[in-house]
Structure formats: C-alpha cells, structure tokens
C-alpha cells in the first residue's frame, strides 16, 4: 500500500446519496483523484468496515438511527480530519424534518396507514436498526473538523476542498450555500 498518499474515506449516513453522486460528478477528475489519494472506504467500493488511520473522512447524511450513531463514533475515532459533507450532515436538513413528528407517527404512516397487509413494523428488532427519537446533525454526535454545505455541494467545490486538504492547506471558504 502506498503510505505516502493520504487515505480518503467516504461514508453515507441518513441522506439521499446526492452528495456522493456529486462526488461522482467529479467525472474524469476521479481518475486524477485516484493519483492523489488512496480511497480506503466508500459505498462505491467493497470495504465492509471503516478502517483505522483514515486521513480524510467525508461523511454524508444526518445521524438518524442507532447504526448511524455507532458508525459516526467509529469514523471519528479512526479519522484525522472529519468533514460534515453536505447539508444533511451540516444542519440535518431534509432528514431532520421528521423531528417535527414522533418516531411512532412516522413509522405508522409508512407501515400501517400506507399498507394493505401488515405483518410487522420494522424498527430496532436486531435486524433493522432502531430510529433515534431525534435526527442529529453530525456535530451533535461527534466533533467535526470542517463543514462542506450544499444540497449537494457541487463537484468543483468538492474537488477544490479535497485538493486543499491533500496539499495540507486549510480549505479556503468556498462560499457554498445551504440548499444550493
């Protein structure tokens, strides 16, 4: 393994994957990126467990269930720089809109009121995780080093941000906006 290259991980909690899609919108710059960093964990690759000694972790999505909470704590422990990647990670955004309602009401709508056959309602049974009562921003769960807002952050923003980090520079203010 090339230990000279920074190790980049991307992770995805409660969100729509749009931030990861925006990352893929780097298009051919993905090939350049592969020369700059060592992608050691990502939903687009086959790594099952978040590895040790990650240099840069981009985390999309809010913390919405027990699995997310466990995962973000592990990510924090194992990452040097943790980035709240996109509006759901930064503010909770759409994922946190359910905080206006109780978990029970939200589950009842989906699995009782909108069902014609009810054999069970999924949640916290050991197979699917229990939903948290309130969706959290990442910074509500762990310390965050940088915030990269946007719904999603655009590919140019992502590339400039990562380039700065890889070069050891403090990422400049990219003037990305919430919801943009």
């Amino acid at each position, binding site marked *: 393994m090339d230990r000279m290259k920074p190790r980049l991980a991307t992770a995805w909690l409660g969100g*729509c994957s749009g931030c990861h899609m925006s990352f893929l919108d780097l298009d051919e710059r993905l090939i350049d990126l592969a020369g700059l960093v060592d992608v050691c964990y990502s939903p687009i690759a086959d*790594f099952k467990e978040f590895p040790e000694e990650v240099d840069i972790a981009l985390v999309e999505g809010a913390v919405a269930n027990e699995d997310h909470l466990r995962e973000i704590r592990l990510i924090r422990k194992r990452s040097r720089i943790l980035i709240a990647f996109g509006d759901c990670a930064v503010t909770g955004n759409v994922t946190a809109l359910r905080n*206006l309602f109780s978990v029970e009401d939200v589950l009842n709508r989906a699995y009782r009121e*909108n069902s014609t056959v009810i054999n069970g309602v999924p949640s916290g049974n050991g197979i*699917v995780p229990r939903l948290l009562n309130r969706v959290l921003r990442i910074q509500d769960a762990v310390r965050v080093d940088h915030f990269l807002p946007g719904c999603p952050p655009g590919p140019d923003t992502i590339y400039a941000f990562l380039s700065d980090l890889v070069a050891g520079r403090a990422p400049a203010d990219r003037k990305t906006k919430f919801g943009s």
Partner: protein
Amino acid sequence: MSRTVLIQPVTRIEGHAKISIQLDDAGQVESARFHVTEFRGFEKLCEGRPFQEMPGLMSRVCGICPVSHVLASSKAGDMLLGVEIPPAAEQQRRLMNYAQILQSHALSFFHLSSPDLLLGMDAPPGQRNIFGLLQHDADFLRRGIRLRQFGQRVIELVGGKKIHPGWSGPGGVQRRFTSAQRDEILGWIPEAAESVSLALERGKRVLDSFRPEIEFLGNFPSLFLGTVNELGGLEYYDGLIRIVDGRGNSIAENLDPKRYATFLGEASEDFSFVKFPYYQPFGYPQGHYRVGPLARLNVAAFAGTPRADCELREFKQRGAGAVCESFHYHLARLIEMLHCVERIEELMAHRDLFEETIQAHASLNRRECVGSCEAPRGTLFHHYWVDPDGLMTRANLLIATAQNNRAMNLAVDQAARRFLKPSSASGEFEEGMLNRLEAAIRCYDPCLSCSTHALGHMPVVVEVFAANGDLVRRIARPPDSQNA
C-alpha cells in the same frame, strides 16, 4: 447446529442493507433474506407543507434519480391544479427523464457492476471498484464516466443543476430550452452513441460468460409491470400500465397509473424498511411483481427507435415470452441506455421543445392526486392529499426499488442455496461466494434511499444464526484488503 450468516453492509449498491443467511443443522443454506436498514419518513415529514414545495422536497428522496421524483411530484401537482401542461414543458420533462435514466444506468453498469463483470466475482475485494477498474481498463471506465457525465450535463443544462434540479413544478417548468442548449447536447451525441454501442457489444459478450450467475442469481418466473404507450411501445413519462406473467402472457392491460391503489397493495414486514408491493388480484405474496429495465423490455412490444428496436428483438429471444433471469437486468439497462441516447437526439429536433409557453397557471382544483412515471429502476408513484389551502395532509410513495423487494429476496435466497458452500478445507465461506449474493442484489440496482425514502450505502455483513436464533458469528470483509 444451525446458524445464520449476515453480509453487511451490502456494498456497491445505492443504499444501506444487509443479507442474512439461515443455515440448517448440517451447515447447509436453509434460507436467505435481504434487509434494508434505512428509513427517513418522507410520507410523514411532508405534512403541513404546500404542495408546490413537493417537487423540491421529494427530489431529496434520492440523489441518484432526483429527476424521477421531481417528475412524479410535478405530475401529481399538475393534477391538483387540474391542468394539461404546455407542450414545451412536457417535452422538457421527457428529455430530462431520458437523461436521468441514461446517467443512472451508466452509474449502475460502469461504476457499480463492471468491477464484478470485468474483474470477476472472485477478484480481490480491494480491487472490485472503479479505481481497480482504472488499472484494468482505463479507456472503458473513462467512456462510462463520460456517458454518465453526458446524462448529468443534459440535466444541468435544462434544469440548472445536476443533482436536485428545481426546474419543474405543478403546471410546467421554469426555464425555456434554448438552441444553444440543443447544440451542446447534439455535440455530445456521437461520442455517447459510440460509447453505449461499445458497452453493449462488450456487455453481451461478457455477460454471456456468466452462465451459472445467469442461471442462479435470481432466475424465476414472476409478474412484470411497466408503463407502455397507447401502441404498446416503451414509454417513460406518461402512459398506461401493462402487466405480463413469466411467459409473457398478458395479465392486465391499459391500467391507469392514477388508479394504482385499486390494483396494487403494499405489505409491511418487520425485517426490512422496504415494504413488499403486490398485484392485488393475486394477493400477497403471490402477487409480487418486478419492475425496471427487465420488466419494461418484457412488457413493451417495441422500443420505437431503430437501434434499440434491433436490440430489443434480439433480447426477447432470450426468453420464452418473457426474460426471467435477474442477471439480464444488466443487458436490459444497456439497451435502455441506447434507447435514451436515440430519444435525446430525436428530441433535439422536436419543435415543441422550443416553444415560449412553459407554464400553465391555475389554482388548487382538487384535493387528491397521483403522479407517475418510469424511473430508472421502475414505475414510480407519488400519491398526495392536501387540505383546502393546498397544504399536504398525507403522502404515499410507491417506489420502483420497493416493487422489486420480494424479487431481490428470492434472488438472494436462490443465489445462497446455489453458491454458498462451506470450503471443505476451512469450513468457511469464500469471499467470492458472498460477493455473488451481493451481485444478485446489484442486478436490481436497488436505490434504497428511494425505496425507504431513505438511502445509505449498502454494506454487506454476513451473520450466521444458530437454529435457536442466536447469532453465532459475523463475517465482515477485512477493513483494509486493498492489496489482498
């Protein structure tokens, strides 16, 4: 002692999920199930918000096919207003849908499934990704990346943004299509057509070399459901629902998607956040059906564009009335990509697209509405109820991937029984065997943010459960096996 094996997370799929495998006392596979572990609750969290906001909000159901949600939501909004939208708006929406399907299918084929197809199911897991593919065949990958880029660029040109474009809403669209946009799109067409042809030729060759996978990664008869136009051809934006069985026999014709709730039901089970839709006349679970590329090619009599029609005729010869092998979703996706490129080119000459009127104006005229279209992964339905002020009181979203939920469970079960044999030396399952279970899921390209109105990466862990239900062991891939 019997045990359960868990694969989690399932990776290279668009969502959070796991697979559990129940072993019997002799250590043989008894059954396997697919669990989706993500949920966000859009059907509730939209409550109290104006219906005009829905396209923008529902777009956030999924970052992979946001345009599909914008379209279904806009169409639902059109119905609330009681309007027929201007022709320019309709053609723009069609254009965006083709671009969406093209980019999403390119993602599925090149970025997510090619590592299995080109590097092999048993390749080291650390290499089975686009970066591994880069070492193996950079040109092919570059073409795939650019093909997806083309789809995304069309979306950006027309909608103003690649992901979550807010350009369409109840009554029409907000931006006029220009000749400069047309020229740029036409400039991309030769390369896109060439790339998709190369992928199709190579795809056919490579896919046919996976005989055991074709036969055992989810090969079973089922109902197939999809949208067709009035002549029975492929239709993605607005049409009628057709259902055929596993031999291609007609089960239902000319169903109005707005009346979906009269013929489709949804079952809730406690082991997955994705529900199990079914065709009501056949009951649950017998009425389960498949949607998406394979289903669309099975229900459509023709494609309607010259090159896709040739491919479709050839494709249909693979089945007796209907193609039932899940593995052929890959090929169906390639054929649809070809069709989308042809349709995008064709649309560039459509005069309606350039008309000035793009928005129909009306106030709220109904209290309940359904919007439907074909999303990349299958038929999508948005069903809304509003109060007299146009504030949402309820929503039901019937999502493409959910409609393949039972099929994905059957595919995983079949793949586990066929491929999962403990090694005689170690008594363990080899990694490649487990990857085949994930590959069964990848055939369906499930978009789990969509299907649970939530999303996440799909990690695979295999959990092995004893007969008494105790977790015996958990198999996860090594955290860092890049150079394995």
